[in-house]
């Protein structure tokens, strides 16, 4: 029982973590909370369903297609909803937040229109592969999700700290104008970031589809809010924080259901977050000042 619940919690937490990674990237560089991230994640899940269940193509094509579509969405999000608002005089710092909310409403209703309101099953033989250890059933998908989330975190950390593009990204995050003066192509860096974050959302979408076999137009909203809570918990714009925060929330939610009352699942999870933030306002991995954390 305990072991099974821990596996459940880690699976859920890993998915939260991948969603949160996308949030944290955009926030870290642009200082914007991208409210459309949850919906991009949902579109990724739908593309997965479409490719595997409707067209019957293999899983790796589904991953490529989902990444492809979410990359395009990310590019359009940056070009249409974010770039026109950047650096303009008189634009409120809340304007990009509102425009991403607009994009999220648009995407949710669009998929509502195209796919219908109901749940769509993710039928793929890969999702059925399982191991029996004693009375515990472990699905290969659960292991895959955990491995993918850890890999993404490691690769992202390495890329941010060691590669040139990663350094450019951090420089842009530090100060847009200075980075631009020092020869960083900030426009391209920002676009790359938004695209990268969206692709992460697409990957998370497919993984959720495989793990829980339920994809619907409303799934983006709750996932998005959880992702938001996690980056606040882990420390804004911090990759390790997103990972730790995601796992923590996933495990906490599962354990509350397992040993407490499932009605308080969200309540206790968020109360925990509030307490942690009271003790460490900057989040678990956050730097001391908000500026330094960015």
């Amino acid at each position, binding site marked *: *029982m305990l072991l099974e619940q821990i596996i459940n919690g880690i699976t859920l937490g890993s998915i939260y973590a991948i969603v949160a990674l996308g949030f944290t990237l955009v926030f870290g560089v642009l200082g914007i909370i991208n409210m459309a991230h949850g919906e991009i994640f949902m579109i990724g899940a739908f593309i997965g369903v479409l490719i595997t269940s409707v067209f019957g193509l293999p899983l790796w094509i589904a991953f490529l297609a989902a990444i492809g579509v979410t990359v395009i969405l990310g590019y359009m999000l940056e070009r249409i909803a974010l770039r026109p608002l950047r650096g303009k005089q008189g634009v409120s710092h809340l304007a990009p937040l509102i425009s991403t909310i607009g994009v999220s409403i648009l995407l949710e209703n669009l998929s509502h229109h195209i796919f219908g309101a109901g749940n769509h099953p993710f039928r793929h033989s890969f999702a059925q592969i399982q191991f029996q250890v004693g009375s515990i059933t472990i699905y290969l998908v659960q292991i895959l999700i955990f491995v993918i989330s850890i890999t993404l975190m490691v690769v992202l950390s390495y890329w941010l700290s060691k590669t040139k593009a990663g350094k450019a990204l951090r420089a842009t995050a530090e100060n847009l104008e200075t980075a631009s003066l020092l020869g960083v192509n900030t426009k391209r860096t920002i676009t790359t970031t938004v695209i990268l974050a969206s692709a992460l959302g697409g990957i998370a979408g497919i993984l959720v589809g495989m793990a829980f076999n339920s994809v619907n137009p409303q799934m983006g909203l*709750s996932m998005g809010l959880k992702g938001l809570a996690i980056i606040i918990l882990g420390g804004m714009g911090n990759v390790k924080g997103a990972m730790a925060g995601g796992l923590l929330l996933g495990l906490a939610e599962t354990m509350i259901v397992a040993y407490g009352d499932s009605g308080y699942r969200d309540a206790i999870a968020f109360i925990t977050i509030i307490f942690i933030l009271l003790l460490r306002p900057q989040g678990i991995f956050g730097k001391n000042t908000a500026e330094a954390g960015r």
Partner: protein
Amino acid sequence: MRNSFKRVYLLISVLMVVMLAACGEDDTNTSNASEKSEGPVSAKIGVISYMTGPGAAYGEAITNGFNLALDEINEKGDVKIELIIEDSAGKQDQALTVAQKLMSSDDIVALLGPTLSTEMNVVGPEADINGIPIMGTSTTAAGIPQIGEYVFRNSIPESLAIPAALEKAVNKYGAKKVAILYGNDDLFTQSGYDTMKAEAENMGLEIVTIETFQKGQSDYNAQLTKIKDLQPDLILASALYNEGAVIMDQARKMGIDLPFVGGNGFNSPQVIEIAGEASEGLIVATPWFGEKDDPKVQEFVKKYESAYGHKPDQFAAQAYDALYIMAEGLKNAGEADRDALRDALAEIKDLDGILGKFSFDEDGDVIMEPTVLIIKDGAFQQFE
């Protein structure tokens, strides 16, 4: 400019003439109706239905059912009915407005609808005050017929459907321990849960755990692992089919092979579509079973399919029977009078419809034996 004014005047005067003509027609009709003329009783019945908006599919099925019954009844010739259909858009205020409009017309003797229980909660009291019989065909919430003397319904409430399904399931599987799972952020699933819990306690079953979930949740593994560990004999799930199907899918994956007992919201062919094989073993009680071995039912299904191009659902069937109940009431009343119709409706007993034998209790609620179904071999089948 002047020309366009002229046109507007012309339009207005034409409209006025038309309206006057319409009034004249109305007048003659009322005098006809109240004269208690020999021959069949003719009456107008107002319909309030959810025709536009996200729930428009319900309104469509319901009005289709009405129209099919209307043609048959008028052809038979015992009574002559005319339907005046109005759209409530699923909104309380609009439902009330159109209801008031219908009620204020004296030659309308009864109302059918509205579609949602929340709409009925505002329209029902108004109809009761005005003394016009009103019958819901899809309102399943508790307390609807108790609104007043003039309020009826022919849709089976959850408080009748769930115990029927539970009793049969418990008898068949000899269940002693049950686990309950329900959506705690929806009025409908919550009231279903109340019924389940009360009924389980009534039957002396041990409730091993009560778990909750929220609308649109995708991960139910934590709750299901817990239920699996407690080893109940039966799982009672008050869920809408969307969440319910996913719950069953994840349960089967985890190795839980127990039968599920669900409420009316769980009763949809969509469950089979979403969950596939995992949906096997879902038990629900429903007033409507389209595969029933009854010539009346089969004829209705055939007629409906040829008229509208798809199979009728529960809502169409309930509407179809509702109009027959109204026709029976009118025939027995012998005149198109609101009070006479109310009294005649209240006395209806064992009326044979496509849903089964139908009677009203003293509140105007349904007395009927629902059919219990189970999903087996990829389809709903009668559960014995």
